[in-house]
């Protein structure tokens, strides 16, 4: 709700809009419509998320992907219908700040998961009875019961 003092009417389009702000000309009823649509979509996506997590008919590796998709979609619904973010020129600053935040979130979360996953798979200590890693090249960790070729290392 910016108060433009008698300036040209098209200036409204060039001014900024506060994050979360509705347009000033929106009345109670039209503003409510956005929230009702957002609530319905969010409930739908929530139900889809919980259904996907519980169901047995879906291919198991696809479930995390579906969950992440629904979550990102629901965050988008919240941003558009509850926080009234648009792609308009009056929202550019808000969108740019959000884009930077999303970048950092993805670097932090994705990077941590990626690095730690590789640490776990590549730097696992040799466990008794588990994965057998030769401490020295060509020397088996444990004596093999029956080696048909009599070779040293096992790979």
């Amino acid at each position: 709700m910016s108060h433009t003092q008698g300036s040209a009417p098209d200036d409204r389009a060039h001014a900024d809009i506060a994050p979360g702000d509705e347009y000033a000309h929106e009345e109670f009823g039209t503003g409510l419509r956005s929230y009702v649509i957002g609530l319905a979509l969010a409930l739908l996506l929530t139900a889809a998320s919980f259904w996907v997590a519980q169901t047995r008919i879906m291919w198991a590796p696809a479930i995390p992907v579906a969950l992440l998709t629904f979550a990102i979609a629901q965050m988008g619904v919240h941003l558009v219908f509850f926080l009234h973010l648009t792609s308009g020129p009056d929202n550019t600053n808000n969108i740019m700040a959000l884009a930077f935040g999303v970048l950092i979130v993805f670097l932090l979360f994705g990077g941590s998961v990626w690095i730690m996953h590789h640490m776990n798979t590549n730097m696992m200590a040799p466990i008794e009875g588990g994965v057998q890693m030769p401490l020295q090249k060509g020397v088996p960790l444990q004596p093999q019961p029956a080696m048909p070729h009599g070779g040293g290392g096992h790979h």
Partner: protein
Amino acid sequence: MSDSAAISGGLPGGAGVVPIRRDPHHVGHHAAGEGETRAPGRGIGGPAPKRIVVAYGFWIFLLSDIVMFSAFFAAFAVLRGGTAGGPTGAELFDITNVAIETVLLLVSSFACGVATLALNARRPLVFQAAMAVTFLFGAGFLALELREFADLIARDAGPSRSAFLSAFFTVVGCHGLHVTAGLLWLLTMMAQVFAKGFRPDILRRVMCFSLFWHALDIVWVAVFTVVYLMGSAA
């Protein structure tokens, strides 16, 4: 009209108000200087209104808050398997309870939106009613979460049991703390609107509160997806 003439004409603070050009080469504008907007926050329009500055600053804070949450989410995702022989997420989490919590917080967020609409329409009664609904659903969410925490601790699955549970209590508890702070802020806003009316500074505070409350709901979407649904699937 040259730029130096414009400046010397504008400096003595005389009667003739000549706008000082901050953009001497008219980058992005017509050569004659036409088409320059007088909108606030743009060029000769002067600084943006306080309402936009305040809300934008709070928006930056919320984004940094979400970055902090993402670090906790990363910790949880990494430590999810570190149960130290203790109970796993699949054994501990009550998904029905989480679904109820989700709906409570969503309806609370919706009611908060209705409250801001009532605020913009200057309807004090609708505003107070919508804020009361927001509070009740938010408090219901918090009660369910506290019951879940107490139940987990009673089953010897407290934050000190394993790395997985430490990460769980950190990320969910941090969100719960935000909700608690939000509820206190909500009551303050109800009292201030009741006592001081729709003053511009009060309007800005309520607007920041509604941003905060909607952002908490967005964080909760990540919580129930990453922590509860993906955490119990493993």
